[in-house]
């Protein structure tokens, strides 16, 4: 795989500190075109910080993020802006604009970046909402929706512009198993049809197993393990096994 294709996203020895806290401590990760990489790890392992680096929301202290050969960490604001148009990102709580209706939220990126007619935009909005299993919510305000529905609207908004790279920040946290399965199906469906590259962060192993080509385990600011799902489950690392079985790892046991 390594010789013929150039990675879509390369993360090269990424280091990021907040105050005295070294959250990312030399992360290396490559994501191939069309590949789905899922980064798992405990709360506070730096997952969100990592994914926000991929789109330039954070700038690293050291290291580089290279997207399609362009170094995001050194790019001018204009180039970075153009590059971001190829991304779609869904946020933990949906991050919907609470002053706008669901329809306007999903239409927002379309109105900004796509030169389409009013009808074409409305059609695309409905299509995206159907894709995430939502009907009859177009005229509602985000505050009227449940947490899971808000997340799915955020998801519809992220795919509205048919991005090449999708980033999911905890797409299923707080969702019931059926909705989790639906999200997994949507992600897999999009990958089949559009050759989309995706990076997902989650602590939901069930989701990771369903959508990942490769699973990366993040711990103490480094990639601890990286393997396809079936191999990942067999890894001998005690922390990975503890994570899979939902137990407290031996080196972390504390007396209360």
């Amino acid at each position, binding site marked *: 795989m390594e010789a013929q294709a150039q990675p879509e996203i390369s993360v090269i020895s990424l280091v990021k500190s907040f105050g005295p806290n070294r959250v990312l401590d030399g992360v290396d990760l490559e994501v191939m075109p069309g590949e789905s990489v899922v980064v798992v790890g405990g709360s506070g392992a730096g997952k969100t910080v990592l994914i*926000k680096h991929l*789109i*330039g*929301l954070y700038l690293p202290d050291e290291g580089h993020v290279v997207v399609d050969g362009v170094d995001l960490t050194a790019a001018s*604001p204009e180039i970075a*802006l*153009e590059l*971001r*148009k190829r*991304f*779609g*990102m869904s*946020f*933990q*709580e949906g*991050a*919907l*604009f*609470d002053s706008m209706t669901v329809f306007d939220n999903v239409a*927002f*990126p379309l109105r*900004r*970046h796509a030169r389409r007619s009013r009808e074409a935009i409305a059609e695309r909005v409905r299509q995206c909402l159907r894709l995430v299993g939502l009907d009859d919510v177009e005229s509602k305000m985000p505050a009227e929706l449940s947490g899971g529905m808000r997340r799915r609207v*955020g998801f519809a*908004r992220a795919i509205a*512009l048919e991005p090449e790279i999708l*980033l999911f920040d905890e797409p299923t946290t707080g969702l019931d198993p059926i909705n989790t399965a639906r999200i997994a199906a949507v992600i897999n469906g999009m990958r089949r049809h559009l050759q989309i590259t995706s990076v997902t962060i989650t602590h939901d192993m069930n989701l990771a197993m369903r959508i990942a080509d490769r699973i990366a385990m993040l711990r103490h600011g480094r990639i601890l393990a990286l393997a396809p799902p079936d191999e990942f489950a067999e890894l001998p690392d005690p922390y990975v096994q503890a994570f899979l079985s939902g137990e407290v790892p031996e080196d972390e046991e504390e007396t209360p």
Partner: protein
Amino acid sequence: MIAWLESFGLMMLHLLEELGRFFYIAAQSFLWTVRPPFEPREWLKQMVRVGYDSIPVVFLTTMFTGMVLALQTYRGFERFHAEGFVASVVALSLTRELAPVLTALMVAGRVGSSMAAELGTMRVTEQIDALYAMAVEPVQYLVVPRVGSSVLMLPLLTLIGDAIGILGGYVIAVGLFGANSYLYWDRTFQYMEVNDVTSGLIKAAFFGFVLSVTGCSKGFYTSGGAEGVGRATTAAVVMGSLSILLSDFFLTKILF
């Protein structure tokens, strides 16, 4: 001694950080004002909020200020038989000083705080990150219309305040103390120069800039959830009002 130095150093660092944020937002909003896309809808919305919606507050504030000015000066000037100059004092103090400063202080409380609260909420719910991820520059979309409409609207509000305040003074002097109506109008304009009004308007535009940039930068750099939003809102009013009063002194020194 060391502890004292340490806390002094921390305070200075904090101050420098605040100043840095203020000037960064100010510079960025200049930069993004001149670049497309322009946001006519957002501009209009903010102009209504800052300008039109503030008219009642400005009306009452300047009305009563004009009235109390006439009341106080009439009582004082009576002692050396200079009641005739009440009109000039009212007109000059209002146009040069009171209308711009009081208008700005009221708008800082009304609008500067709501800017901080709105942007702060958007920050902590990742809506600003979402904008950025959708390749929309948050400063351009959120800050530029707010700062721009404040700079435009404050002088207009001040102009209204000038007129209402002078009218308030007239009501007291003529209605309550029985001054000559014709003479009052005559004295109002006799010593007033164009520069008195324009310098007041220039100050107002500058205050509009200061209060909106303060509100926006406080909101933009909010952290720490609901409590953080509360802190940002308070700080926006306090810092905004202080900067208005401090810059008023230096502006007056320069402009006259």
